[in-house]
């Protein structure tokens, strides 16, 4: 540490760890994108269940969001991971397959998606409620089926209201992937720790990984701003 930093450790080829870091970064992005997408799907289902569901459905959705928002992500991820792999294993055994190894990426996406879904439910519920009733009623009056009303009117009309909250969730998703390091997924944070403890250059590697995360955050922040501007076109500028 005192005699300067050896940047050749970040080289892409074998003695350097740059390639491993970038692979881990790619893995993190994959996990974040997959988990976020799954979270949006769960969020739409949850929001519809909360707004239009029957009494029991509504209460079940409420319990889901309460648990997701009250329990630490790390604990939830561990629980979902064990329950998920256990159930998948038993299902496969029941169907006659002997050994079954849950694909790490799938399990990670599932775990992040289930956590994201709880927050997405709340964001999307608020956004759907912000859509003027008249627009949805007009769509019904035109004879659209409920599914068509959802895809043609409700979802597009709620998008601008959902963007600020959903942008926040994307930032949380990218950072939540780091928690998977505790379960043992080889994403960016875990690879960084392995590199750092192998070379004892803690600052170099942890700060490099931090820069990668920061680039991801800043770039997606810029992209989301542009998307928001696009989605809000034609609406009131003042907000």
């Amino acid at each position, binding site marked *: *540490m*005192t005699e300067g930093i050896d940047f050749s450790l970040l080289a892409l080829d074998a003695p350097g760890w740059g390639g491993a870091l970038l692979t881990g970064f790619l893995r993190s992005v994959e996990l974040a994108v997959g988990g976020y997408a799954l979270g949006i799907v769960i969020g739409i289902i949850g929001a519809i269940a909360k707004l239009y569901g029957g*009494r*029991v459905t509504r*209460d079940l959705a409420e319990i889901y969001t*309460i*648990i997701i*928002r*009250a*329990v*630490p*992500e*790390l*604990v*939830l991820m*561990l*629980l979902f991971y*064990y*329950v998920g792999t*256990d159930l998948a294993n038993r299902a496969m055994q029941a169907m006659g397959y002997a050994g079954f190894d849950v694909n790490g990426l799938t399990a990670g996406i599932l775990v992040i998606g289930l956590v994201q879904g709880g*927050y997405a439910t*709340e*964001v999307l519920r608020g956004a759907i409620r912000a859509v003027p009733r008249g627009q949805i009623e007009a769509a019904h009056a035109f004879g659209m089926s409920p599914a068509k009303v959802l895809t043609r009117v409700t979802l597009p009309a709620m998008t601008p209201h959902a963007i*600020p*909250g959903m*942008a*926040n*969730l994307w*930032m949380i998703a990218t*950072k*939540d*992937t*780091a*928690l998977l*390091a*505790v379960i043992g997924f080889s994403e960016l*944070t875990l690879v*960084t*720790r392995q590199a*750092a*403890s192998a070379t*004892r250059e*803690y*600052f170099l590697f*942890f*700060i490099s*990984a*931090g820069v990668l*995360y*920061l680039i991801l*955050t*800043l770039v997606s922040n810029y992209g989301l701003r542009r998307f928001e501007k696009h989605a809000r076109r034609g609406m009131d500028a003042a907000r």
Partner: protein
Amino acid sequence: MPDIDIATPLAPASAKTMLHGLRGFFLPHRIAMALIALAALAAMIAYMDWSWLPAYLPRLWSGLGMTMIMLVASVGIGFLFALPLGLAQVAGPWPLRWMSLGFCTVVRGTPLLLQMWLFYFGLGSLFAQFPEIRESWAWPYLRQAWPYGLIALTVSFAAYEGEVMRGAFAGVPAGELEAARAFGMSRGKTFRRVWFPRALHRALPTLAGEIILQLKSTPLVATITVTDLYAVITRVRQSTFLTYEPLLFLVAVYLCLSGALTIFLRWMENRIPSGG
């Protein structure tokens, strides 16, 4: 960027409306659901292995204590740092403004786990290289893990809350500050009597949400060998080879903690008069 949890302050309920609210809560389907939940709970208690619980109870209590210390200390110290961070971004000269903006962006843009490991492994190994530090009074503390966990949690809370305070300071209507100045208050007095109290009041609902989020971040200290509640449960899982029971117990404890904290924070919020 807006925050996730914006609780609207509730008016304190009278006894009559509370009773009415309770009757509204116990609908037939809810009673059925509660019975199913109770049956599931009874089945869990009867059929799962809870024999480890009595032996680990003292350690669980001390783990809970560590979790609460981490939460309270990081929130308290972090809030003290959040005030200048927020104020500098609203009213500071440009170098301060850019520095605090940069600090908040960097901390909010990287995972807390990474920061914690940077502090623990990085700073820890750096400090060990200096004999001056090794021989100083602080070394017995710096050799332990908890100061690094506390630093990481505090830095994180300061950055997130600094962002909230920035919005709160900026959101105080300019007219109120002008009125204070027109009354002849000095800049310091305007800050103490008008700007700060009004900003704090605006930030309170978000602050409650941030404190819950902070509670949910505390288990990360277990990854740097601080024995909080989560670390004790990990120990249980390793020594008993049970998967579900300790985790379900942990979920239940965190549900109770979050619930109690939410009720306490809402009670605090209601005690503060909101005169317009």
